[in-house]
């Protein structure tokens, strides 16, 4: 397992803590344009993901790994369709735990 470039689990609110750093998150796709996808984070905030090759077609949920550019945008390096059934609440709780009391177990 390549652990050379770890990414932090974030939701909308946590993104601002990692500006300039590698993050990963799952968003619900709201809309897409050439070079960017607009989505809703698991804590109901808007996130814009810019990058060169989003999957086509997009499923309802999309995982993005990339660099946080601002508190609501990510420059994607890896995109992965996460399908149409996904539990955003579970992911949101994971983000909270991974950045909270269990932070020492993650990066």
């Amino acid at each position, binding site marked *: 397992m390549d652990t050379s470039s770890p990414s932090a689990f974030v939701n909308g609110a946590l993104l601002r803590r990692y500006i300039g750093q590698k993050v990963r998150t799952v968003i619900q796709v709201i809309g897409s344009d050439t070079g960017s996808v607009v989505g809703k984070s698991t804590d109901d905030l808007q996130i814009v993901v810019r990058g060169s090759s989003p999957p086509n077609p997009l499923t309802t949920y999309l995982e993005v790994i990339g660099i946080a550019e601002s508190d609501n945008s990510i420059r994607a390096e890896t995109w992965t369709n996460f399908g149409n059934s996904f*539990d955003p609440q579970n992911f949101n709780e994971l983000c909270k735990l991974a950045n909270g009391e269990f932070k020492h177990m993650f990066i």
Partner: protein
Amino acid sequence: MEMENSAVTQDGIATVLSNGSVDSSSVRPQIVVQVVDLKAVGNRYTFSANDGKTKIKAMLPASLTSDIISGKIQSLGLIRLLDYTVNDIPGKSEEKYMLITKCEAVASALDSEIKSDFKASTGIVLKPKQEFLAKSASQIINEQRGNAAPAARMAMTRRVHPLVSLNPYQGSWTIKVRVTNKGVMRTYNNARGEGCVFNVELTDEEGTQIQATMFNAAAKKFYDRFEQGKVYYISRGSLKLANKQFKTVQNDYEMTLNENSEVEEASNEEMFTPEIKFNFVPIDELGTYVNQKDLIDVIGVVQSVSPTMSIRRKNDNEMIPKRDITLADETKKTVVVSLWNDLATGIGQELLDMADNHPVIAIKSLKVGDFQGVSLSTISRSSVVINPDSPEATKLKSWYDSEGKETSMSTIGSGMSSSANNGSRSMYSDRVSLSHINSNPSLGEEKPVFFSTRAYISFIKPDQTMWYRACKTCNKKVTEAMDSGYWCEGCQKKDQECSLRYIMAVKVSDSMGETWFSAFNDEAEKIIGCTADELNILKSEEGEVNEFQTKLKEATWSSHLFRISVSQQEYNGEKRQRTTVRGVSPIDFAAETRLLLQDISKNKTSQ
């Protein structure tokens, strides 16, 4: 004009500040001050009021402007303050000023500003003089508590440590605790000799509990001194890690008191009794606690209350009262709680009277038995709270009022003993990890106990007898007939053919342990992924690739939700624990994640 210092009220400003605002109706000393630095601000005049020692800013009302212009009130003159308020200067909360509403001229301009020999400070507010003498702490103590009991004096001077701060490495501490449970004196006789021992459960104001044990001389010394419900100061005890086997309270440590320990009753002293700390188990999770040592707490809506019953106690033939309460909660399951002795006659009677209101009750320290699947019983230390003031109770009441009372609910016990168990329905109740089965070798001693669990198949032995020949009609084992075909004893007939039905042992693993499960046909089919007949065909096939082994390999390290029953079976005269698979379901990852999140938060709150 001669300077008449006496005309200015001595320490007038200090008096003004300490007395605050005054109006002419109050009987207060009327203070005379000198007007200094009189100047106009708009149509009003401000000045500094001088008493010879201190000055304070002051403001005169517009109504007195004419007096100033006419010369009645003069700069360096004296005025008597009749009506004024003392306010903070906005933005400078340290400084105050007087807003004068009524005053009268006393003297015209003096030669100069009155100054005492001491350096007058301007604009700085002095603290009002202390009306009382400061007393030293010991003076106060002696005056107030001179005749108090030693314990009271100890309380004033001795620092009380919270129970949660105690550890084996800190020697000198004093705790203030209530005896929430007092055990009986027991005598023992072991290799080291004879002795007696008793223990007490202590609770402090924060709700932390600890068990304290006394042996022999200490036991005799303190047995009569400790009374249940009373509060004591205790020091010079020792702490050690609690023996998990005998733990009855939530504390990593347990305390031992010896003859040198100090136990003083805190008589006449109020001690806040903390709210009982509950750790509720939802009714549908009670299965895992059946016949376990752990005492549990429940909260539920009272569906029904039975009359008092008299039960003969086995050990001494005495008749004791019992009352059964049926509780329901949001898991839509019901359970019967048996109240014994005083709880049956006292609070039990109260509950009978209010049964139609369907109150919410919370009960602490219940034993979980397996009568009718799951049964709860009170013990001497159990406590019952009717309609507790807590969010859980409020939630339960509103659930019951809105939907609960209409819903038909099943008793939690019914899920336990039925053999025709629908696998999917009970995959989330009585969830355990495999370590629970291994750590309790006597599980299912009287009756099989049912659980659900999530685990991986870790090993399927290829060279085991995986199936038996079964009658196509009744599935019972058939015997080979003399000529050809198979004879079914149950159906009393012969058939040319039979079917193969699984009976196999599989090893399973999860994050907490591993164990063996027995699986019969329907469940094994879900694990292997094909029927026994099909697997048999694969086994007898020849070829490059051993399809049989492949099939087993594919089934290995697959994860499932299992409904299992644990029972004791006799084998060669020995009792052995046997776990049988009753149902297999695929994993719903989102649901499992939610369970894990629940577990994580449960572990947090119980810390």
